[in-house]
């Protein structure tokens, strides 16, 4: 397939402090002991999309990520690493690497997507419709809203405010309207309604941050609209809005094609009106619109914005908050364990002390040791951790090289690498940043503990 894949892997995400750091950028954040980027790359490999550009923020991150990818995916994927400055947005990142893009179509995927939807399906949809942009939509996960923390569905309006309002045509193939917030009332252009007749407004779908673009269109939009920062908030809505009137776009259509259109347009005029009057059915609203009713010289251009809606049973979550991190870790070891790729090797069984129980949906990394009478439930323990006796870990993630003293109780918390928990520490809903030392006997609840930045 003539597809080039751009993985927007990011760098240090503020939402994920203190989990990420310079030493551990977001793409390498372990999900069930496996860097999150691995999930995307694995899916791409499965879909035979092997020509990749991984875009990361900052040179340091580029080195780290590059090292990891070349170690893991050598000979399997053809990966280029591109470093871009921080805070230039997704559109900015694409603009920065625009000159690397050569293929006819570009698949852009967020590096923090943990999903089992094959990217190949999106690419195929895109090709089938010859669309300018195709976006993947998935159902809002059952596990509750990602970004609204643990509040669940208490405030419905508020919860929905985080999602998109998406307008689809009756065949659910074309994207007619997209708005990223519903703080204000939704406004839908009548023009598109005229064209399509009926539009389904959905608020139960979310944009999964996987897009396929026609390269020429993407590059042109990025060139012309140099203020556009975000793919999701600027570029995509712009394309959707202008889909029936894309003068700015597609100027590169071959001259010959345009001329031939001119010739027929005057004949179209008559045919067009008689078609309307006869209430004849039109094959596609885009087709209807691309015919010019007044027979003037310029033929109107349209482009298609398509959607690929993942089936509701598929798993599709972005790791963009701590809550999401917890959810994904839980799901990946539980319901969605098929996501764990085979290269997520579990080393030699960790050493367990006597009367230590490890419940289901747990994962222990290689070389970890646990003392006596420990309990581990629905938790993930990384590699080479040293865990004392009488430790209880529930719904938690413990990364690599963590030392946990005797009698610690950890609930719903994330313990980053090289953390040391001294005896009888009690943590509930906490995040402990890398290298932090929690003194003996301390108790924390819903706090974020990290070393001061040097």
């Amino acid at each position, binding site marked *: 397939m003539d597809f080039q894949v751009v993985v927007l892997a990011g760098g240090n995400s503020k939402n994920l402090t203190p989990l990420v750091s310079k030493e551990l950028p977001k793409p390498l954040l372990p999900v069930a002991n496996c860097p999150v980027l691995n999930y995307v790359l694995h899916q791409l490999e499965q879909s035979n999309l092997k020509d990749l550009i991984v875009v990361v923020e900052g040179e340091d991150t580029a080195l780290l990520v590059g090292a990891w990818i070349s170690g893991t995916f050598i000979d399997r994927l053809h990966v280029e690493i591109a470093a871009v400055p921080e805070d230039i947005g997704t559109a900015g990142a694409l603009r920065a690497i625009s000159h690397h893009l050569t293929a006819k179509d570009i698949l852009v995927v967020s590096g923090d997507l943990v999903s089992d939807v094959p990217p190949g399906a999106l690419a195929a949809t895109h090709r089938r419709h010859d669309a300018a942009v195709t976006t993947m939509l998935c159902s809002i996960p059952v596990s509750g809203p990602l970004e609204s923390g643990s509040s669940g569905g208490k405030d419905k309006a508020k919860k929905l405010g985080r999602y998109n309002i998406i307008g689809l045509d009756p065949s659910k193939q074309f994207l007619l309207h997209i708005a990223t917030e519903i703080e204000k009332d939704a406004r839908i*252009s009548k023009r598109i309604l005229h064209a399509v007749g009926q539009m389904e*407004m959905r608020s139960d779908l979310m944009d999964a941050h996987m897009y396929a673009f026609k390269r020429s269109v993407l590059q042109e939009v990025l060139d012309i609209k140099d203020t556009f920062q975000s793919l999701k908030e600027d570029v995509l809505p712009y394309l959707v809005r202008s889909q029936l009137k894309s003068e700015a776009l597609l100027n590169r259509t071959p001259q010959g094609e345009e001329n031939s259109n001119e010739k027929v347009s005057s004949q179209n005029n008559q045919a067009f009106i008689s078609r309307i009057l006869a209430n004849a059915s039109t094959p596609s609203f885009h087709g209807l619109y691309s015919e010019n009713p007044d027979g003037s010289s310029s033929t109107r251009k349209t482009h298609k914005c398509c959607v690929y809606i993942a089936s509701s049973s598929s798993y599709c979550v972005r790791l963009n908050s701590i809550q999401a991190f917890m959810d994904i870790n839980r799901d990946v070891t539980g319901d969605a364990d098929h996501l764990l790729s085979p290269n997520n090797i579990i080393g030699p069984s960790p050493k367990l002390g006597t009367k230590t129980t490890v419940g289901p949906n747990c994962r222990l990394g290689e070389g970890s040791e646990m003392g006596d009478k420990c309990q581990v439930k629905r938790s993930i323990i990384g590699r080479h951790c040293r865990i004392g006796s009488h430790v209880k870990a529930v719904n938690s993630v413990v990364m690599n090289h963590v030392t946990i003293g005797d009698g610690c109780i950890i609930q719903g918390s994330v313990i980053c690498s090289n953390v040391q928990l001294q005896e009888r520490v009690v943590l509930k809903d906490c995040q402990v940043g890398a290298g932090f030392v929690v003194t003996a006997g301390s108790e924390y609840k819903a706090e974020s503990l990290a070393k001061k930045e040097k």
Partner: protein
Amino acid sequence: MGAQKKGATARVSEDPEELARHPLQAILLADSFTTKFRPITLERPKVLLPLVNIPMINYTLAWLESAGVEEVFVFCCAHSKQVIGYLESSEWSSQPNFSVTTIESHNSISAGDALRLIYERNVIHGDFVLISGDTVSNMSLTQALQEHKDRRKKDANAIMTMVVKQSKPSPITQQSRLGTDELFMAINPVTKQLLYYEDKAEYSKGFISLDKTLIADNPSVILHNDKQDCYIDICSQEVLSLFTDNFDYQHLRRHFVKGLLVDDIMGYKIFTHEIHSSYAARIDNFRSYDTISKDIIQRWTYPFVPDVLCGSSAIKVERQGTYRASDVTLSRSAQLGSFIFIGQGTKIGNDTKISHSVIGERCTIGSNVTIEGSYIWNNVTIEDGCQLRNAIVCDGVILKSGAVLQPGVILSFKVVVGQQFVVPAYSKVSLLQQPTQQDSDEELEYADSTSGTGELRSDKLNGDIAPDLSETASELGTGGVGYIWKVFEGAYDEEWRHSVAPIPTDKLVKLMLDRDEDEELLTQDGNVISASGELKTVSDGNGSEDDDNEDSRDDYVSFEKEVEATFLRAVHENVKVDLAVLEVNALRLSYNMASVDCGGAIFYSMMKLAVESPHNSASELHRNAADIVTTWQKLLKSFLHDIDEEIEVILKFEEMCLESAKEFAALFPQILHLLYDKEILHEDAILRWADEKEGADESDKVFLKRSEKFIQWLREAEEEEEEEDE
């Protein structure tokens, strides 16, 4: 007419339990409360106008009967005598299982009034069908009724079911078919609940605004531009009482439906029922008259087609959709095209060509006449060589030889068109003069001819007034009789929209382009789109905020004016302070202002009065101000409850001194002192104001400096007090 009835009743009585409780009732509004069919409706009610030679109301009644309705209340207002007279003499008054009762009103001006009157009569005892007398349909009500009842059992708030029908999208097809404006609806695809309704499309607005809660409550909403409202509603009793509760509801759709959709307190819901294969449409204007006539001739409305409805009176359907009464006198050389109807006793001369037209009873049509797409009612005489294209010709009209009717012409009753005269396109011609004063309220149909008077007048016309008309005959050529109605200003461009003539091609193209231009404007103007939150650039965000501010500022200015007017009236008419307080409070509520704004506004009015009262020197001005403040201090105090409000007054005063009443600038400290003395302003407020101003620009501190002494004094006094306290 009874032929199809048996089948229908059998169908409905499948649910005997429901029927046993109460017979299905219907309200038929035999008055459309619009003026779209003028000038014809000045003389005859719309429901009695012939539609393919049968009065419209017959189609509606026949359908109601077949759909299982047992009791119909016909509400008539304009020309009610004619409607009642017609119904009494017709077969409808003597049907065994179908009673038609008329309800007469003389002063109803809207559907809302009609329903309120019916509510008072207390004749409706359950669910009913609400329909107007100009609706043609052949749908079966069974399923819609059942759905309505099932929903009612689950949710008592589901009070209405609207019948909608699929149509083609785009305003062009809606315009070209029924001549109606485009319609936007939002429907929940699962429950079929109607969530949004917009029929009077504002062309200036290129977008639809859906309330956010609406989307939050419904995970999926389908927006429709491809549905046609059939104006057939199944209503529960509550609908009538709702009209009574909301006495300002006039229009069924514009007020009632929208009112219910907007109102979330009562929680009433409207649902839709979509029909697919059956027919339903309402004759709203001349264009829909044309379209529906053609549909009837082409038998889309079967069994409600002329040959079935007229029963025994022999109308035969021939090839190519030609309907011909038995005793038509037809010249051998006449050429009859397809889809025509020719009524009883009509004579047609040599070489006359007729196509796509309806010709009523006892008409005389001469030789070499061309009739295309026209509707010719009864007793019309068309002399030789006339040409008619897309015209409506009412009873008793005479077209002298060689007259030409251009597309879209309406000739009302008994008009005479002179020889060789060409009636220009879209003209409306009547024996009655155009009502000189167009009623500003378009809702009023027949406003100037209530029941009976129309008839009366037309009778008179035949006798006494007719001679007068000859003077004006020049309007319609030699020997012509009638007035050509002038098109109202601005309406001229709109004539073609509702006309019986097909829309000219250039207009269609224009319509398309107009719409595109609208859109272009919309897309160019980033603000419009950004407001939807799609595009978040800095400048756009500011733009919309500014608008908001602008609005509130405007509000405030007009509020201030109102307060000032109130205050002046209070001063001049010696209104008691308590009453003035009440009035200002009422204003505050109606403008949705805070009491802070009231204090400022009252103080502003006081000072303005002081400035405007005659004075020669600053000291006189001060005295004026002091007098006014003393007299009305109570009024002012009642709006100054806390320190913020007092500070607001000081700020207001500062603003005045800078802008509107510069004379006060010199008196600033004195007035401040005065307000302090009268205990209108407390020292806390003044000191706080001084503190706040401390950090301001130099230019802002002018007045602070002027009143420095006073503030100094205040501070000292405070300290002293504190010391005393100690």
